[in-house]
């Protein structure tokens, strides 16, 4: 019996030693993303990772980190190094600016992206002129989604959207339904009023820009005179009046996305990914997408969260990680990946593809891109600055004070943050 066992063990050991290299575990590139709302987009990395693996032996494992609290997890991992991802998604000015966690992009790949990005996105993914990140989201600017059925019910023509803020406000009033006590049961506008102040700032900025205001000076060194300018005060007054005076938006409503999906809000300002979200989560909502209404100026295509993919400096597989990024850096992959999730592709070559043209936001995207590029706030302390600013916005929404003193206080605080 013992002899049989010995032979069996020897045979297993011999087989293991003689096994072809393909039996070995494939090497892995770990990819972290917090785009939990875009699973198909994320899956693409794994799918193409398999093709990449056949050529190189490296496969890609995608880890989706919940958005809420992702910074803490990223920071802990990138500081700890051993548990850090090889590739990660985030904002370049944070991870490569405030911190030094990013590997510089190889020159040939950087050139490829510089040559194929829409002009307004060229700065996205760069820190101090050097490219670290690959922008992943074109259309990461808010547009106006309208519920066509609610528009019709209110006697409004969904094919003639309001073009100015005055017209928009008039439409919002018609779209709002109040109960006997004067509280809205349906609102015109799904307004972001809860969550972190950074998100609240992001949703308010198109209004600010439409009023001709900007949050920081052009060189991003000063807030006083900008965050509390007369234009900004007027914009915040307009914004808080939506809740407190006109009641066309409500702080009693859930998240804006849910309110729109539940047909309890007739309009929402969101980015291109929202098209896919509505189709999946609220398929019975009939909607159209239009450019944001203009005030003194048009809000334009701008955003506070320029998402990019970066390679960790500490990764032992840096070269393979960049090779993988090169592998998927082409127009076809760009189109396939974004189309799978219903997001606008990034490459200029795809902006007039059949897929993009068939989207309900094609015309509006073109229109938004024709507008002047709004101010950008790609500062390493953008989260903290946006928090200080957002606190003033949310305080005005909740009637905690008047826009002017709130913005004065916010601007002073932002200046302290900038000076520190």
């Amino acid at each position, binding site marked *: 019996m013992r002899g049989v066992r010995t032979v069996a063990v020897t045979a297993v050991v011999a087989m293991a030693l003689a096994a072809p290299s393909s039996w070995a575990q494939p090497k892995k590139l770990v990819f972290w993303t917090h785009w939990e709302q875009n699973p198909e987009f994320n899956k693409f990395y794994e799918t193409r990772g398999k093709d990449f693996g056949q050529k190189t032996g490296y496969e890609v494992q995608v880890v989706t980190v919940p958005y809420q609290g992702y910074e803490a997890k990223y920071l802990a991992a990138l500081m700890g190094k051993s548990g850090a991802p090889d590739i990660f998604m985030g904002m370049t000015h944070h991870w490569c600016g*405030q911190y030094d966690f990013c590997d510089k992009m190889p020159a040939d790949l950087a050139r490829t992206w510089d040559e194929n990005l829409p002009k307004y996105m060229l700065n996205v993914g760069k820190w101090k002129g050097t490219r670290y990140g690959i922008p992943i989201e074109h259309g990461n600017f808010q547009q106006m989604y309208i519920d066509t059925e609610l528009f019709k019910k209110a006697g409004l023509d969904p094919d003639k959207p309001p073009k100015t803020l005055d017209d928009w406000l008039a439409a919002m009033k018609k779209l709002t339904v109040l109960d006997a006590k004067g509280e809205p049961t349906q609102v015109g506008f799904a307004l972001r009023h809860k969550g972190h102040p950074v998100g609240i700032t992001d949703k308010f900025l198109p209004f600010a820009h439409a009023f001709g205001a900007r949050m920081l000076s052009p060189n991003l060194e000063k807030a006083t005179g900008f965050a509390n300018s007369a234009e900004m005060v007027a914009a915040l007054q307009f914004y808080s009046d939506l809740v407190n005076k006109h009641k066309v938006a409500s702080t009693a409503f859930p998240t804006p996305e849910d309110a729109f999906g539940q047909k309890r809000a007739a309009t929402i300002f969101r980015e291109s990914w929202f098209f896919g979200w509505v189709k999946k989560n609220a398929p019975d909502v009939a909607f159209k997408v239009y450019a944001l209404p203009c005030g003194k100026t048009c809000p334009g295509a701008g955003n506070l969260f320029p998402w990019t993919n970066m390679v960790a400096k500490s990764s032992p597989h840096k070269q393979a990680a960049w090779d993988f990024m090169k592998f998927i850096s082409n127009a076809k992959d760009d189109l396939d990946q974004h189309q799978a999730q219903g997001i606008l592709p990034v490459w200029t070559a795809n902006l007039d593809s059949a897929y993009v043209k068939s989207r309900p936001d094609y015309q509006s995207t073109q229109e938004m891109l024709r507008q002047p590029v709004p101010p950008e706030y790609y500062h390493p302390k953008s989260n903290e600055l946006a*928090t200080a600013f957002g606190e003033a916005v949310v305080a005005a929404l909740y009637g905690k004070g008047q826009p002017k003193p709130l913005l004065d206080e916010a601007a002073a*605080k932002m200046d302290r943050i900038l000076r520190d």
Partner: protein
Amino acid sequence: MDRQRRAGLLFVLPAVVYFGGVFLVPLVESVIGSFYRTVPGGLSQFVGTRLYVKVLTDPTFWQAVGNTLSLLVMSVPVTVVVALAVALGLHRLRSLEARSAWAAMYFLPFSVSLVAAALVWQWIYDPVYGVLNHALAGLGVPPLKWLQSLDLVRPSLAAVNVWARLGFDTMIFLAALQAIPAEYYEAAAIDGASAWQALRRITLPLLNPQIVMVAILELIFNFKIFDTVYATTQGGPAGASQTVIMLLYDTAFKYFRLGDASVMAVFVFVSLLLVTLLQWRLFRRQVEY
């Protein structure tokens, strides 16, 4: 060192290693980190006590301290008093099965993840779909914005804290009540003492160590409250529920100011230590059965 002493040391070693690794090392690192600021590029720079001055003169920090204290004042006394009342009630139940069943029910919320509980409470408090407003509507009360109101958000969160902690405190009081010899009450009854007098003269003095301990535990728990706030309001609306730990978290991981966050951590540690020592000294009485 003799064998017995060595064995004793070996027994406590795992706890010492765990405590050292999980609590002491981070504490020391936090104290050191509070004297350094992170500069763009990820490097650290020694700045002496500058960050202490900065944090301790920041109105946002003191607003967070104020919110924390206000939550604490609303939660701790209520939790302790209600837990004591529930324990006294359970203690009077003659049926052991009934007592166990009730005790288990009170204890259940404590075993639930705070984040999960917070999300459930978020639904309960929802101004439109929430069961609470639905129930109150039956009584003719207009819908309230529990978590979206500057005035109601902290009491609403305090209610969640009381709900979550009640079972744990009740268990401690119940165990202590069961340890009080019945002879004391019999003697008091013979002497003609009323139930109130028995409670005041026998029960409460003998429960003193547990009351002090529970009060300290609740104080620490509520001072460090994070999960429920993070999962429900994220400090809102308009910073009305931003606690010190919420601010610390944001400062460290959203704004990447580890030095500032370390100052807050040191502040929390020193405050809790001082308050605990004070509470211990003022309220602790020797109890002998």
